[in-house]
């Protein structure tokens, strides 16, 4: 009895040991299931068809071109390489204005014939039609849109997921925004973080260190939403006044807030790296007549270089994934960032801001999961790098 109970508890403990691995695998499954189904789907909103005249020579158009047509930026088929005729847009509402209810029939059962009539009279017409309002079988020329590919998702320069009826999903501005804000943050944080680590590990005496260490831990304990709030009421106006901008919510504000948030990571990891150097290395340098400062810069820091680079990679990884603070201070404009004093939008901020509005299982929803996959891959890679660096150090 006693033995079976013990056996049971031990099995339970073992199961819990594997729990985190199971969770990571589950995260991968649920994230990539949605994310991968996004690649290869058509950018037309579900339930819509784009119909053109049979004489139209175009085989397919891209989502970017479709959006430009719907925005009125492209007005002639020749601009897309087709025959020269003006593009006229029609929607379901337009159809019911042109044709009477009898002509369209009950439940739009004759809508295909009406559209055909319309297309015959206006060859350049383009009809954005709700599938539900079309008969099941029709002989209309549905213009296919280029499927979303991984390359287009990563390289397209516009992000308009809510454009109707064709969304544009280019993650490049978001990716560049994320990288810009994160790398600038580390650039700002590095001098302070390194100085802090050197000071704590080498210069400060034990009393000062015991006093400072908990304070730096406190800095990492402050919730990111509080950093965002502080950034919004202090740093954003400060940046706005400093550069005389119309809005202070810029990449720069985001970098400064992220720099403060990345400090504790950089300091604690680099300090550990410096402190774990065997003391004979230090003694040897001092014995050769080097001053303490020379020992630090020419012996200890190079010796701890791999640990310090692990700290930097870890800091970048954290900064890339940071959501709330960045969401609150960067202005969230999904455009290719032109500079530090312009608003940008990062990948986590996009997910946080848009997932609430995206309909479940829709294209926009899947696109946000695909962004989540990108984030996951980035953090996986940074973790792997840190892991391999710290493993090498031990050998």
């Amino acid at each position, binding site marked *: 009895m006693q033995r079976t109970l013990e056996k049971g508890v031990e099995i339970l403990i073992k199961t819990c040991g594997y729990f985190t691995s199971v969770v990571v695998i589950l995260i991968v499954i*649920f994230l990539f299931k949605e994310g991968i189904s996004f690649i290869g789907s058509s950018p037309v909103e579900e339930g819509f068809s784009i119909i053109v005249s049979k004489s139209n020579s175009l085989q397919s158009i891209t989502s970017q071109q479709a959006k430009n047509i719907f925005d009125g930026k492209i007005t002639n088929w020749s601009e897309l390489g087709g025959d020269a005729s003006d593009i006229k847009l029609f929607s379901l509402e337009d159809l019911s204005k042109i044709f009477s209810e009898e002509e369209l029939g009950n439940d739009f059962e004759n809508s295909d014939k009406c559209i055909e009539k319309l297309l015959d009279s206006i060859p350049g017409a383009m009809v954005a039609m709700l599938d539900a309002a079309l008969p099941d079988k029709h002989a209309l020329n549905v213009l296919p849109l280029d499927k979303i590919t991984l390359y287009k998702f990563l390289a397209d320069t516009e992000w308009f997921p809510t454009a109707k009826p064709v969304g544009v999903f280019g993650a490049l501005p978001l990716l560049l925004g994320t990288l810009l804000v994160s790398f600038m943050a580390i650039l700002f944080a590095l001098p302070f973080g390194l100085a802090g680590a050197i000071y704590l590990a080498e210069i400060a005496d034990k009393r000062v260190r015991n006093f400072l260490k908990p304070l730096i831990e406190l800095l990492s304990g*402050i919730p990111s939403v509080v950093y965002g709030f502080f950034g919004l009421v202090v740093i954003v106006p400060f940046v706005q006044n400093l550069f005389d901008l119309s809005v202070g919510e810029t990449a720069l504000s985001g970098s400064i807030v992220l720099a403060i948030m990345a400090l504790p990571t950089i300091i604690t990891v680099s300090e550990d790296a410096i402190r774990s150097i065997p003391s004979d290395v230090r003694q040897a340098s001092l014995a050769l007549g080097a001053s303490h400062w020379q020992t630090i810069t020419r012996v200890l820091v190079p010796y701890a270089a791999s640990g310090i680079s692990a700290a930097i990679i870890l800091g970048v990884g954290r900064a890339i994934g940071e959501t709330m603070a960045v969401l609150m201070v960067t202005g969230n404009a999904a455009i290719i960032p032109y500079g530090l004093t312009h608003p940008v939008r990062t990948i986590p901020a996009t997910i946080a801001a848009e997932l609430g509005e995206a309909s479940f299982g829709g294209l926009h929803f899947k696109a946000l999961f695909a962004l989540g996959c990108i984030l996951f891959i980035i953090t996986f890679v940074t973790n792997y790098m840190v892991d391999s660096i710290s493993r090498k150090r031990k050998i």
Partner: protein
Amino acid sequence: MIVFPDSSDQTKRWSQIFFFGLARILSIFIIVILLVILYFIISRGISVISWEFLTAAPKESMTQGGIMPAIIGTLYLILYSMLIAFPIGVMAGIYVHEYSKDGPVKRFIKMMTNNLSGIPSIVFGLFGMALFVNYLNFGASILAGSLTLALLSLPLIIRTTEESLKSVDQGFRNGSYALGASKLYTIRKVVLPIAFPNIITGLILSIGRVSGETAPILFTAAAYFLPKLPSSVMEQCMALPYHLYVITTSGTEVAKTRPMAYGTALVLIMIVLVVNLVANLLRNYFASKVKMK
């Protein structure tokens, strides 16, 4: 061989004084930043804090009243997520340190735990929404939010458990085995009681982490405004960090909601301060106790 080109004693001394001073100033600057943040939020928030602010519900579209539902909601999320994460985390820590043998399996588990701790909180939010809210059909609820937060805090609990177990002297284990005790009995009666204080410290730190997380509960638990308190774990709740986020960013009357925002930020900061203080006091207390032995 290391060559020091500027090894005249004077330059050596002065450059050392200069750079040590610089390192000191930059370090002090970090502390100044922390103090500025704390001072800023405390000085502006303190006048907002009142008995009413802590015990009343928001009124007049968040411009008046208090934040009681958000406090209660955060307490629920902390309680349930810790109830889930703590037993699993401690047992996982015990497995990794006491049971698993060095080798590829242990390395794999450690790597996965590391990975889990590196995953951004917004990805946890996405995952929680996909698995708990939609797939398991819990809907946006305290349960879904707590489960998501529990997964997020697991690595921290596992790691502190591991560290605490590591600090227990091997002699205790061997002594127990020598008396004929089984492995599980030894862990339960000898190892865990010694490691317990440090494990509790980890628990307290993860409470601090959970109480401030926003992104994971955005789509799994948090509600903008609820007229009454949640009555079951299947309902949504308000939460302090989410409340701070919405009243700073989406209110129409920014000037009127700002004081409420300062108050909410102060309450959040106080939670973090108290949690850190308690954890540090506990750590020092038990450290001094161990030394006396």
